[in-house]
């Protein structure tokens, strides 16, 4: 299965104003891969999640496509045009499992974890599967299932939420701010769980404002700013060298890095400029930036993953040479090995000067 988002835009109509929540989003996500969509609160990333699940309010208009291709039974489906009946019966829970924001808050306090999981299985018509097997798949022991939500630690509540998301055996997992309010060890545990789901062969889309959480789990990073994806990159080269000035600023703001903020504030989604929305805050801006920069592919970056870090370079007569620029050559599929241990990646940036 593959999720292919193509030109997806979401507008909300308010009295006297239109909110441009998502503009022309394009990305792909296939099984066994994890994409983290990062950005600050109000940039549109959660709206994207709701759009994929068909959970937007009535005043929203969605255009473009979000296709699920190569479905388990064959065929494909466009989440944008699918009627609510299809979304309810075939998509939510069955093709896309949602890991909600604060898992503990989504569990019914007066029922054990087992009864909640069993009910979800029943609702999805998965009578062949027992709550115990499902719990084990989510990393819980059957004993834990007899507990009530208040008896679960934060980590266990997270696993119960994951078990609920997995009940319909969905090929795509969507986690919307799964680490909000969790402390660091729990963030790490949650990310490890999501990584495991991904390594089992599911596609995982994580939506988060937490760059460090994203770094732990993602193969690819999409950075969203003022409703647009401004950088789409494999994770390793992104964290060692982000290209878009906003992405650079965000990483520089981390306490482990320079700990300096980006000056200014993002624009209102009701009044986005025609040109680059980052212009008023950008130190690299020129007059060219008054035109909207498209998200274009930069040159393919070749290199090798060494100790989990992507190092740019290439193989010359069987020897890896660091920092050697690539001459020509077609990029292989994003992040895929192109033979002899070499990896070729293509990165996309929406900036006139990146």
């Amino acid at each position, binding site marked *: 299965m593959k999720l292919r988002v193509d030109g997806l835009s979401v507008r909300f109509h308010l009295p006297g104003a239109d909110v441009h929540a998502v503009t022309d989003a394009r990305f792909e996500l296939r099984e066994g891969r994890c994409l983290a969509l990062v950005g*600050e*609160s109000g940039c549109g990333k959660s709206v994207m999640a709701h759009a994929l699940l068909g959970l937007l309010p009535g005043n929203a208009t969605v255009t473009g496509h979000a296709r699920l291709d190569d479905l388990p039974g064959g065929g494909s489906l466009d989440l944008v045009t699918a009627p609510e009946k299809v979304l309810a019966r075939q998509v939510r829970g069955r093709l896309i499992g949602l890991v909600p924001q604060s898992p503990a808050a989504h569990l019914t306090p007066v029922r054990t974890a087992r009864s909640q999981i069993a009910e979800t299985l029943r609702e999805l018509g998965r009578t062949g599967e027992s709550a115990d097997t499902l719990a084990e798949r989510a990393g819980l022991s059957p004993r834990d299932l007899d507990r009530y939500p208040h008896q679960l630690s934060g980590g266990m509540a997270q696993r119960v939420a994951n078990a609920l998301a997995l009940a319909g055996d969905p090929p795509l997992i969507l986690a919307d701010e799964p680490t909000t309010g969790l402390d660091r060890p729990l963030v790490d545990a949650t990310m490890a769980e999501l990584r495991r789901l991904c390594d089992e062969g599911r596609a995982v889309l994580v939506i988060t404002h937490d760059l460090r959480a994203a770094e732990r789990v993602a193969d690819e990073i999409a950075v969203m700013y003022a409703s647009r994806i401004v950088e789409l990159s494999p994770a390793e080269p992104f964290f060692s060298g982000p290209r878009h000035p906003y992405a650079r600023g965000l990483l520089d*703001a*981390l306490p482990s890095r320079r700990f*300096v*903020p980006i000056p200014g504030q993002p624009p209102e989604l009701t009044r986005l400029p025609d040109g680059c929305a980052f212009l008023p805050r950008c130190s690299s801006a020129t007059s060219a930036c008054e035109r909207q920069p498209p998200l274009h592919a930069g040159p393919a970056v070749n290199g090798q993953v060494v100790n989990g870090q992507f190092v740019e370079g290439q193989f010359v007569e069987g020897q890896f040479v660091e920092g050697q620029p690539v001459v020509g050559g077609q990029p292989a599929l994003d992040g895929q090995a192109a033979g002899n241990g070499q990896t070729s990646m293509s990165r996309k940036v929406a900036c006139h000067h990146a």
Partner: protein
Amino acid sequence: MLEARDITLSFGRHRVLDGVSLSLRPGEVLGLAGPSGCGKSTLARVLALLLRPSSGTVSVDGTVVKGWRHRAPQRTAIGLIFQQPRLAVDPRFTLLDVIAEPLRAARRPLDRAHELAEELGLTPELFGRRPHEVSDGQLQRACVARALVLEPRYLICDEMTTMLDASTQAHLVGRIEAYRERTGAGVLAVSHDAELLHRWSDGNVRDWNPAPAPARNADPAPAS
């Protein structure tokens, strides 16, 4: 100095704080690190004079606190910023009202609210908005301005930036640092994020590891 001595506090049968002591000097940034649920937020509320402990004393610059909440004459000496700005403000207030509220209560001129709002990066068009019309980051900026508006001598930041993106986090910490340098206020930064605390406080961090005996580990005084 803002000082808590031998604080014990129970909710029902659950003892959340057990003989905890902590002191914060003027001009200092002290980080208090620990996992969620360890009692550090409760201690932050006791230090902000919002919660009366079952036993133990809190003193502000040498004066022992006798009344709590609105009965504490020292309460304006201490500012508190919470993790979740939405739970910390009246939803009917505009952002400017949120910031000016302590000035009104203290019958002081309101001009300072404007200045602080701008220092915190809020633009005039946001002043009249209500909490549901702004993002978490914008609302937290207003809450930081509110905490600073009466120029407290001590400031307690309880997971102030947990919900926020890295840039807003760096900005708010930067504003609080500027305030501390200008006024010599003491800052207690409470968080589960040890990396943030180490950077912010230049390594002046107390680790609060509750298990198995929270009081011991949290107490800087030598065992007696």
